[in-house]
């Protein structure tokens, strides 16, 4: 057992930390990035590529740096601290997870930043049932024809390629018959409608109508989907920890500065104890984010799933407590768009709903006891 980062991991942490501090240290710049055409800073995305961050999870043979779940955790936590808009999670963690295992020729373009992936999987009826897919994949010669309506595609409005789930057989919520394909966003039969999300990021509704792919567009089946989603949840746990740790620190700073009734409000014992409970929530979430990272590649899918679900429950609960208490302890100022606290609160609230809410994952853990 070893909680220390390796030398390389420490370098990674420093480098991503500096990058985020440089670009997001002045919080007002976030709104500027959000107003750019793709909803994030093209310049910063290029920096990500330049520093090799976009190659993190890919094998060295493919031009990546062969990072694992711990490296992803380090990067995601830093992105969470900065409330970063760039599609690292969508393209590298989520999208990358599908082509990484396939050793796909697209990898080089993902690493240099010119290709950006997005997972077009959720559908209107699916809620948190991961295998609830109605979109169809019909064989067509050596390729496939895809039809269906995909919803809530993270960063789907600027992606160059979609990872699409579709069904070649099996019942609506069955694993059997589920297939994953990669398709260019500008293919015939693919259309999208982009929009902003509550946390200032971007998403899209994606429609597939007779969209054709060749046979080598097939990436895998339900087991691949399950594995990538679990690593994605682990990564988002780390992002949430970064965001809530920053929010907790911001709140403690505010308690020290803000004066009422002739004293810093941080001198009031009630607020002290509630700040302590925020800290405890952050530390418990951090422990579980580490646990999720450790278990994200566990060879036993059931153990992996139970561990990731447990982490998600803890992280969600901590997110809600830290988010709500940060607002309450700040008072009115945290309700304003101008101040950073509310944006952390909103981002944490949105992460809570991604890939299953607290009750969903609690049921997973309970069933596995």
């Amino acid at each position, binding site marked *: 057992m070893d909680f220390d980062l390796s030398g390389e991991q420490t370098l990674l942490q420093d480098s991503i930390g500096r990058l985020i501090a440089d670009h997001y240290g002045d919080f007002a710049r976030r709104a500027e990035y959000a107003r750019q055409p793709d909803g994030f800073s093209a310049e910063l995305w290029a920096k990500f590529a330049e520093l090799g961050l976009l190659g993190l999870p890919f094998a060295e043979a493919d031009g990546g740096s062969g990072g694992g779940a711990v490296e992803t955790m380090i990067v995601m936590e830093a992105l969470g601290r900065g409330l970063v808009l760039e599609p690292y999670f969508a393209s590298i963690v989520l999208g990358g997870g599908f082509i990484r295992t396939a050793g796909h020729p697209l990898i080089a373009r993902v690493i240099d930043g010119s290709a950006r992936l997005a997972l077009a999987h*959720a559908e209107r009826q699916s809620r948190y049932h991961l295998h609830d897919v109605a979109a169809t994949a019909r064989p067509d010669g050596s390729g496939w024809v895809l039809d269906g309506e995909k919803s809530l595609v993270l960063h789907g409005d600027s992606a160059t390629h979609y990872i699409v789930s579709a069904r070649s057989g099996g019942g609506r919520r069955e694993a059997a018959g589920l297939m994953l394909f990669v398709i260019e966003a500008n293919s015939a039969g693919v259309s999208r409608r982009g929009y902003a999300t509550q946390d200032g990021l971007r998403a899209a509704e994606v429609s597939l109508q007779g969209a054709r792919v060749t046979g080598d567009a097939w990436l895998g089946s339900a087991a691949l989907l399950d594995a990538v989603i679990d690593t994605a949840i682990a990564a988002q746990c780390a992002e949430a920890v970064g965001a809530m740790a920053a929010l907790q620190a911001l709140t403690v700073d505010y308690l020290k500065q*803000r004066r009422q009734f002739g004293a810093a409000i941080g001198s009031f014992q009630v607020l002290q104890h509630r700040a302590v409970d925020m800290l405890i929530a952050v530390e418990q979430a951090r422990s579980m984010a580490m646990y999720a990272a450790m278990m994200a590649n566990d060879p036993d899918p059931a153990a992996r799933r139970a561990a990731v679900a447990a982490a998600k429950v803890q992280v969600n609960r901590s997110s809600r407590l830290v988010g709500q208490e940060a607002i309450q302890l700040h008072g009115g100022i945290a309700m304003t768009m101008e101040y950073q606290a509310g944006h952390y609160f909103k981002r944490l609230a949105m992460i809570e709903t991604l890939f299953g809410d607290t009750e969903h994952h609690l049921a997973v853990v309970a069933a596995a006891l």
Partner: protein
Amino acid sequence: MDLRFTAEEIAFRDEVRAFFRSEIPQAIRDKVSAGRHLSKQDIVTSQRILHARGWAVPHWPVQWGGQNWTPVQRYIFNTEMQSEAVPPPLPFGAQMVGPVLYTFGNAAQQQRFLPRIAAIEDWWCQGFSEPGSGSDLASLRTRAVRDGDRYVVDGQKTWTTLAQYADWIFALVRTDPLAKKQEGISFLLIDMRSPGITVCPIVTIDGGREVNEVFFDSVRVPVENLVGQENKGWDYAKFLLGNERSGIARIGVTKERLRRVKRLALETPDGDGVLWDDPAFRKQVAEVEIELKALELTQLRVVAADSKRASGKPDPASSILKIKGSELQQAATELLLRIAGPYAAPFMPEPENDDALSNAWPVGPDWAAPIAPQYFNTRKVSIYGGSNEIQRNIIAKAILGL
């Protein structure tokens, strides 16, 4: 002891409810229910309908348009209004400055302002909070210096709700800088069209523009607009803040939200059925329903006790209503957030006019877009009007004697 409503009270409730349902435009009530922002015109329309029926200011003295209702009737009226998603009469007039004027104002002020408040011919806003004074209201620094028959006001107010529409602001200002904190404060009525007033919006995290900063730069206010005595404004402010607590728990608002929770959960697909089928979900709803029923009875107990108290002194038990009431309003928005699930995420800015709304394309169910903003926005209810921490301080001191 009989905790049931009497036949007369039930008849009153039915009358009020029927009026709300038939007379207040459905489109306005739907906006309230959906958590969308109301336009100025929506609020004016609704209050004028109430006013025509004599119900805009029922808690006022009869001579100024009041109804002489019992506390239970007032409770029923307010709760039904909330429960039927009727916008309440603009509180800054009807609940706040109105009672101050008929209690402490002079005859000229009363005649000039009260009828216009009831009919919402003037739009009022509240100038209490300042950037440096949150829970510690008495630390305010906006000052008014007497200059002949005018006060000259300089300073800044904040969190001023709907000041962008306001004709008038009632403000606490410091008229004696040497007096102790609470003792040098006066209560002024200021025309918002006076030169030197600037209103700047504060955009809140839900994207709404409800609140504002109001700047005063050498604003000249006639001395006739001083309410009561100079340097006694803190007394009137305390009266205002403690006044009319019967709606503070907003039971009706939470009732309406919980009805909506059930309705939406019944139409939200989840696996082979709908979310409402999930016993765990229903238990979460039941927990809020139970606490709400308890709070409703607690509120009625306070209402009943209120009718026997010397007036003017708020019951410290109303702090209990504020704490639990705000927690339950928030809990209901969390249930709505849970129902929306992944469809809480899309951000759909509200169009400026209602026609544009019907042309907007939703992502997911058409009711989902305002859910997250409502959750965000409702965090304020445990902060404003005396934060829940302040309320607990009040109870500890006034009830427990700690």
